[in-house]
């Protein structure tokens, strides 16, 4: 196909797509005019039915809780896949030993140590970040947030340790066997919450925990339980991922410390 024919085909398809697109856009509801019934229904009934004030969390962990179980499994499998792909292979190990054997000592592209200001700031940030992550994870049914958001925030705490310049501590935290256990336990706990409903009421993920008083941290029943389980899994998964990625770039520097 010559350049000219290709251009003609390209412009024809662009024109076709553009006209269809504009036609579709004209059929959309006006900006800000929501027409679906589900959002309004849930806003009206969720607080009464489930004793929660954050409807998004109620949807995630109850009204479509089974979908969330699928998403948790996707995250779990992705993290396992990334860790398997990034593991230190025999060939790489050999190369590294060769490089360290003396024929070419040291890492030629060493990153500079972070400045004292960065280190001091990061040391100060570790505590607040852990508190904030726990807060977001534990109040998912009351305010925006929940297990996923809280878990990811918690997983950034080891990063702050790394930025504070403490590579050995970072490695000790992130390579701990408990991290792997946390990831698996979180997913299992989520499935367990669902199975408890199946066993006790005959329906998967049906609420089996007292709903509590609206507005209290103990409210929400299985919503709160599933959210916390998600928090555990997400924290474990993301820390594991960080470790898998950082391990290889950090190896030299940890040894120097």
């Amino acid at each position, binding site marked *: 196909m010559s350049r000219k024919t290709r251009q003609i085909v390209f412009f024809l398809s662009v024109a076709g797509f553009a006209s269809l697109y504009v036609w579709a856009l004209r059929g959309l509801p006006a900006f800000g005019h929501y027409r679906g019934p589900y959002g309004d229904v849930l806003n009206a009934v969720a607080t009464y039915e489930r004793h929660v004030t*954050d409807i*998004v969390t109620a949807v995630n962990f109850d009204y479509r809780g089974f979908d969330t179980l699928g998403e948790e499994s996707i995250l779990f499998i992705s993290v396992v896949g990334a860790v398997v792909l990034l593991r230190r292979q025999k060939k*790489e190990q050999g190369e*590294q030993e*060769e490089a360290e054997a003396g024929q070419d000592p040291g890492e030629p592209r060493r990153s500079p140590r972070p400045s004292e200001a960065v280190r001091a700031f990061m040391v100060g940030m570790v505590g607040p970040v852990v508190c904030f992550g726990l807060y977001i994870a534990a109040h998912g049914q009351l305010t925006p*947030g929940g297990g996923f958001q809280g878990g*990811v925030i918690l997983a950034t705490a080891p990063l702050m340790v790394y930025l504070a310049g403490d590579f050995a501590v970072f490695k000790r935290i992130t390579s701990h066997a408990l991290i792997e256990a946390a990831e698996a336990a979180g997913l299992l706990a989520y499935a367990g919450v669902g199975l408890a409903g199946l066993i006790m009421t005959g329906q998967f993920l049906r609420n089996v925990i007292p709903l509590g008083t609206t507005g209290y941290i103990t409210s929400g029943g299985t919503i709160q339980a599933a959210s916390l389980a998600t928090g555990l899994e997400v924290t474990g998964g993301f820390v594991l991922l960080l470790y898998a990625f950082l391990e290889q*770039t950090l190896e030299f520097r940890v040894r120097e410390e």
Partner: protein
Amino acid sequence: MLMLQMTILVLVAATALGVVLTREPASQAIAVSFYGILLAVMFFVFQAPDVALSQIVIGAVALPLMILLGLAKVRRNALMQQRKREAAARERNAA
């Protein structure tokens, strides 16, 4: 409110274009991080704070970090191979 929404939409579109036009991968990781922050602000402006919270951490921290670490690994592999080639060349010269 509408003014704010329009401003943030235009800003997000402009930053997205900026990410695509940045050709150097390491700078692109920083650009994507900035884009992620703006996207989080956009979610917040459009009253989706739950999504905004996820977006701040995933889009502005986790994704750029993974890109940077991936780049570091690629560079290190290239470095290792270069060293090997140099060592082989030295051996040939000595022989």
